[in-house]
């Protein structure tokens, strides 16, 4: 059996706004495999979170439109998530059982009026568990597994009684309670302190080792990506501009945007007084974007008449390493 869990093909997610069409995700393709972590990195507005929300089918119903294929590989065949009704029983079944998601702000993921334990248990009951006693014991061992001390007491607490780190651990417990095959982690450590962040990253790696789930890890933090991802997709303005094995992206970046990003982070031990390399301008809003390289207007290697007339095709520069840039065509 193939180890592909999810295949996204030419995904477009548009939002119809009064000002025009916001092309948040504009033709994105990637594959996520069992036991592997795909890192999606990019700055605000690049579409990384909307990509995740599209896979979960939780984009706003009234003004968003999803096109393309989101193929979930199942024992029984393929399911195209993009074609399901977001409110259907089938989609509801997939969430939690096949694909689960954790967010940056765990405070908003929990209801303040139900205990942590009851909220996690709900998923078990919805998916057929009948025995309350067994469910409770299951949750206690799960809380223990994600590193929550005194889980038999914590299970009856409310989210506001927990620290940020403990809340994030609880959300991870809620996400993995049904053993999903894909975990989508959207900036899960961005709001946490660095020591807690390293604990959470280590926890996610251990869980992956233990149960072989695939992880889609979204973040703006290149340090976190380097630690978590096997493969990396660099997104800019709704498009993947470079894709490859993590080592390739960090050691041998090709796209001017990837290079610029890597150069602009402060590195330890740099000469005092040295200026950081910058990328000029700011990330634009993808409102009715022209069909051209999205990075053209900020790129230091911009070529008029080439970069601004069409989107460059993906070019293979090394095995598994592709870049969309006219410099390599």
């Amino acid at each position, binding site marked *: 059996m193939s180890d592909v869990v999810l295949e996204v093909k030419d995904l477009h997610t548009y939002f119809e706004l009064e000002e025009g069409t916001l092309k948040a995700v504009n033709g994105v393709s990637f594959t996520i495999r069992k036991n592997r972590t795909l890192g999606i990195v990019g700055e605000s507005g690049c579409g990384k979170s909307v990509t995740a929300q599209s896979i979960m089918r939780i984009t706003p119903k009234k003004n968003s439109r999803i096109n393309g294929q989101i193929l979930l590989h199942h024992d029984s065949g393929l399911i195209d998530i993009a074609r399901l009704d977001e409110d259907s029983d089938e989609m509801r079944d997939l969430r939690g059982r096949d694909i689960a998601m954790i967010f940056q702000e765990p405070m908003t993921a929990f209801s303040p009026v139900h205990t942590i334990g009851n909220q996690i248990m709900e998923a078990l009951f919805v998916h057929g568990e009948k025995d309350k006693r067994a469910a409770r014991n299951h949750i206690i061992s799960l809380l223990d597994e994600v590193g929550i001390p005194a889980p038999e007491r914590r299970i009856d607490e409310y989210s506001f009684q927990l620290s940020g780190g403990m809340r994030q651990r609880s959300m991870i417990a809620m996400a993995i309670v049904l053993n999903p095959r894909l975990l989508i982690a959207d900036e899960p450590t961005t709001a946490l302190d660095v*020591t807690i962040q390293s604990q959470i990253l280590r926890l996610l790696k251990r869980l992956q080792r233990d149960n072989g789930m695939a992880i889609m890890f979204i973040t703006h933090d290149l340090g976190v990506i380097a630690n978590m991802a096997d493969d990396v997709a660099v997104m800019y303005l709704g498009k993947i501009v470079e894709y490859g094995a993590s080592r390739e992206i960090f050691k041998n970046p090709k796209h001017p945007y990837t290079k610029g990003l*890597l150069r602009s982070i402060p590195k330890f031990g740099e000469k005092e007084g040295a200026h950081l390399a910058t990328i000029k301008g700011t990330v634009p809003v993808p409102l009715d974007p022209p069909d051209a390289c999205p990075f053209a207007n900020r790129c230091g290697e911009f070529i008029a008449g080439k970069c601004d007339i069409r989107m460059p095709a993906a070019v293979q520069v090394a095995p598994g390493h592709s870049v969309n840039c006219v410099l390599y065509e």
Partner: protein
Amino acid sequence: MGGSSLLEVRGLTKYFPIEKGLLRRVVGHVRAVDHVSLSISKGRTLGLVGESGSGKTTLGRCVLRAIDLTAGEILFHHEGKTTDLAQLSRREMREFRKHLQMIFQDPYSSLDPRKTVFDIVSEPLRINRIAAGKALEDRVRTVLELVGLDVRYMKRFPHAFSGGQRQRIGIARALSINPQLIVCDEAVSALDVSVQAQILNLLKDLQADFDLTYLFIAHDLSVVEHVSDDVAVMYVGKLVEKAPTQELFKNPRHPYTEALLSAIPRPDPDRPLPETGGIEGELPDPANPPPGCYFHPRCPYAEQICREREPPLVEVGPGHTSACHFVDELELQGLED
């Protein structure tokens, strides 16, 4: 160094009362900042790091007297005079505040949405009655150009600007009255990586041009390393280590600093975070800290004395202080390049 220091903080302490019940009876105190002493030389940058709840933001606000302190001295050396800001009345402080400015983390909530860029940037000048009319407009133009904003946008409102541009507006406002000291509280934390680099460069250029002194508060250690001459590390309200930047990162002398450094995810797949070891547990409740050294419950090197006695802050090298009972025995791991 002492001769040229601009700011000297001595024994700065801030306790917040914990109130309970209808009568708001005080049942205890949160020791947000607990007897912290540090100094910054003129034209230099002191980085202040620590996790949330370490008291670094409270310390910054006390220095500006944005909140009143419980005890301590804030000595400001300027034009041959020494002023203890802690002793100034509110009225005197208002007059003095032109020497001290602040840049905030969130460029979205720190700018009044109903005021134009001109109003925002000129406000400190108007409040301190430093300039009016044509002179005021000229000054605003000058600082906007300094921070790289188009002066044609002076009459626009903040919502028309991106995060990076808003942060430039905040910096222009802080600069407008020629301050001596600027407290930067997570000034680049909310910005995208590519924009963050622009703002860090701008802060460095301005410092070189105007001999500015920065107290740079941030949780991102790579940013702090980049901008700071010296770095102070806080843990639950206390200063645990302070050293020249390179020294602190290469040769930490406090186990907490070592733990912080080892937890930084490096943007290099060949240098992953350690799979084991690392620091366990979380920051203690500052309202109910453990006895002895506050770090002992998380410290891999803790011994009996650490649970009983608070370690004093001792000098371990030139400009390098650390508060650990075993500072002379431990071989701690710093960052490799």
